[in-house]
């Protein structure tokens, strides 16, 4: 293989090859980072919320426009829950203070020792005097669900006090007590809550927070077996039998409205909708990255093909001379492919360096994650392949140049 002469010829005429190599380098650098971000986001979007059947779960915020006092309202809430349970197709109903992925809710500080200065973790708080484990379909990995006598309804005008029992998510339990079982251990809630410690009675595998950020604290949630009533509105989470959700939503709405003498304001949302809203911009970013990556591949490819075609045209005479001197068709093909592989290689090496530099910039300025080596390696292989394939067409054309071109006086 005549590598040295090809290299020396390339170095004599640097501009064209440099342009191609630069395109390869730019594309590789950007592509590697872009594909990594796409994959990362895909992993984020795919995170389960903890709700067993998201397609079959929805929630209702029901507000009654009457002038009842808090105790009357509590009775209404309980009645409404029963009404909902009676709807055909409903598997489970629970009153709840917030829903995962809804981007609306409360966080609280968790402390292992009330005297300490800094919180151990900030967790999302789910309050319910029904069984969220049943309604959400949460998977208990340790301990148990709350017992009926542990579920209480508290007037919100009374002082906020710490519950006796709590259920944590596994991620939170591991954070607070790494390597040990959480069952029976105690936690304290932050400054604003008075009272004794709360004992962990159960650990569920997963329950995401309401904001589900791209951090580990998205998985830190605590379930408190209490409802605080006093507001005019109540929120109910409903799990239906699979496939029945849309029908149940309509029937639930009409059942609630019929049951009330005074006008009601009902807002209904499905967990599917919440998920879509939460990840909307992440999905959009993915699409943008994918589109631009494909376009870049196309453009680089066309750049390689274009440049190779131009050189074939410019070197017609030379190719004819080589053929006259005894080069076979395959020698010409090999020459151009080799030439292109060399240029692509220069681009690939440059691209790897550039890709690392770009990633460093993203890490420092935009809080992105570090690029694993595999993406650059994969990208390098991809562009090597593209370099060969793209050059093949023009190289093939070159082989058809007749040796008689050498003698023509053009």
């Amino acid at each position, binding site marked *: 293989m*005549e590598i*040295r*002469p090809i290299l*020396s*010829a*390339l170095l*004599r*005429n640097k501009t064209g090859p440099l342009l191609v190599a630069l395109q390869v380098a730019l594309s590789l650098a950007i592509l590697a980072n872009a594909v990594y971000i796409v994959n990362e986001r895909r992993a984020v979007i795919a995170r389960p919320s903890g709700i067993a059947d998201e397609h079959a779960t929805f929630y209702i915020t029901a507000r009654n426009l009457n002038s009842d006092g808090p105790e009357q309202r509590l009775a209404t809430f309980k009645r409404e829950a029963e009404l909902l349970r009676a709807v055909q197709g409903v598997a489970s109903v629970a009153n709840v203070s917030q829903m995962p992925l809804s981007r609306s809710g409360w966080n609280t500080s968790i402390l292992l020792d009330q005297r300490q200065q800094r919180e151990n973790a900030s967790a999302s708080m789910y309050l319910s005097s029904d069984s969220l484990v049943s309604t959400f379909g949460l998977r208990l990995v340790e301990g148990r669900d709350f017992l009926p006598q542990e579920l209480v309804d508290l007037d919100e005008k009374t002082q906020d006090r710490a519950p006796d029992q709590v259920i944590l998510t596994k991620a939170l339990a591991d954070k607070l007590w790494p390597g040990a079982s959480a069952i029976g251990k105690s936690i304290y809630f932050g400054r604003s809550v008075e009272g004794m410690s709360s004992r962990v009675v159960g650990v569920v595998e997963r329950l995401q927070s309401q904001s589900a950020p791209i951090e580990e604290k998205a998985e830190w949630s605590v379930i408190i077996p209490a409802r605080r009533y006093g507001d005019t509105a109540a929120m109910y989470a409903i799990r239906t039998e699979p496939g029945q959700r849309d029908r149940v939503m309509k029937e639930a709405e009409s059942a609630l409205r019929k049951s009330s003498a005074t006008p009601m304001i009902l807002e209904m949302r499905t967990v599917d909708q919440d998920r879509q809203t939460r990840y909307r911009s992440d999905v959009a970013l993915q699409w943008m990255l994918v589109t631009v990556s494909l376009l870049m591949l196309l453009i680089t490819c066309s750049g390689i093909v274009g440049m190779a075609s131009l050189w074939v045209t410019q070197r017609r*005479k*030379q190719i004819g*001379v*080589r*053929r*006259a*001197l*005894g*080069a*076979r*068709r*395959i*020698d010409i093909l090999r020459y151009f492919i080799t030439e292109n592989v060399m240029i692509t290689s220069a681009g690939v090496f440059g691209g790897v360096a550039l890709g690392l530099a770009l990633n460093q910039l993203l890490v420092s300025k935009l809080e992105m994650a570090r690029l694993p080596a595999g993406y650059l390696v994969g990208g390098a292989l991809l562009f090597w392949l593209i370099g060969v394939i793209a050059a093949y067409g023009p190289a093939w054309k070159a082989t058809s140049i*007749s*040796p*008689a071109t*050498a*003698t*023509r*006086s053009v």
Partner: protein
Amino acid sequence: MLRMTNLSKVYRTHMIETHALRGFEIDVREGEFVTVTGPSGSGKTSFLNIAGLLEEFTAGDYILDGVNVKGLDDNARSRLRNEKLGFIFQGFNLIPDLSLFDNVDVPLRYRGFNASERKRRIDDALTKVGLASRMKHYPAELSGGQQQRVAIARALAGSPKLLLADEPTGNLDTQMARGVMELLEEINAAGTTILMVTHDPELAVRTTRNVHIIDGQVSDLVRKTPSLAQTPVTA
């Protein structure tokens, strides 16, 4: 060495048929220095292309150094070109991005010689044409005459049986032309058969034989006795 019998070459485009060569006959023996002359459009170039296996012919026979060329595929023809023939073009046709060394190297690479064999041959060839000291230079740095000599070195490096020259002095001034012709005569004296196309009648005179082509056919066969002493014409 080279024998063409009843050779014809027809160029066909959409509606036009051009007979470049018809019923062409030529017989070149080993060691001869033959010039091929003729007016423009006579078919000289087509003859050279066919002789050099650069083009295929339409009908007839062509036997080169005992090998019947008809029916050979492209690879075989390329191999034959590489091993048996050497080319010298009017426009030198050196590859501008390669050094002199690499230029002479080109046909040797296709031959498959190893690196030391190639180096030896290149050194020999460039020494023979008197340009060994400028091996690393590039064609653009050389005069026309020097470039042609490099082209000759390239043609010789593979020890060809037959040298084909297409107007080798056409782009050179008188003095350079003389130098090239002398070189060619030396090579011929050393045993290489040379077939040269030219329209310069003065050059035709210097060689052993002149073949004249008109309208695609050999028109004149003028046998010349080998010249005893050629005194260069001083300007």
